[in-house]
């Protein structure tokens, strides 16, 4: 068993209104010094040891993210 993390983020050229909304709200709440915010998704998977990296990449690219608009990163936690 391993824990695998997949982070999916909007591509840099894609408008990210959610991140934008957070960035705009922070100064209003009195928090300064944060110049940019992007918001994406964070998945945590419990994975059998039999699942190899190639399979994980397939899951991430074909399902958890849409390559038209998103990038992803897969990490195995020890």
């Amino acid at each position, binding site marked *: 068993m391993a824990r695998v993390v997949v982070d999916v983020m909007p591509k840099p050229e894609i408008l990210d209104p959610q991140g934008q*909304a957070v960035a705009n709200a922070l100064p209003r709440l009195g928090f300064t010094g944060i110049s940019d915010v992007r918001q994406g998704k964070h998945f945590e998977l419990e994975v059998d040891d039999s699942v190899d990296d190639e399979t994980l990449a397939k899951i991430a690219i074909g399902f958890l993210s849409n390559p038209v608009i998103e990038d992803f990163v897969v990490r195995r936690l020890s």
Partner: protein
Amino acid sequence: MSKIGVITFPGTLDDTDAARAVRYAGGEPVALWHGDADLRGVDAVIVPGGFSYGDYLRAGAIARFAPVMGEVVTAARGGMPVLGICNGFQILCEAGLLPGALLRNAGLHFVCRDQKLRVERTSTAWTGGYADGAEIVIPVKNMDGRFAASRSTVDELEGEGRVVFRYTDVNPNGSLSDIAGISSADGRIVGLMPHPEHAIDALTGPGDDGLAMFRSVLGTVLA
């Protein structure tokens, strides 16, 4: 009578409405079930709106793997007219039948309003009944309606005249180039965010501007 299939996925909401619109237009709606790899002999397919599988991962991302979608993709590649409305449009994009993707509305809220559109292309299976450049009002109602694609994809769509509907007045969701709906190159597959099935009579909708879409396809498949 021409048979128009209407797919129901778990979480589909506007299937009864799409079927009603087909009936109003003079066609015979046929219910198609997500789990059956079977189009039941229909002449065209509507992928209706809703929140298939809750739209939890990404709108349309799970539904596109349903058994019935395999059949839809094959039939569409063979020229069968397919209309994706709202969630249906999102599913067609996820399935690769139409380019681009639909993202969270720029305002970050669900938006339900009577929306003005311009019909930009009438040489499709679903818009033949409209006058060129016609201005119509039909409801838009979605959370993820912002059309996004790479610059080159948008240029290609514009260049080939594949933008079928454009928002006029206001852009409700931040779609690129005010795009409300697009088609495949051959015009057989159309996807749009607004809901023509909710504009089939003035009693329950803003008018009946949507009815022509269902009449158009009946003309197409009869021809």
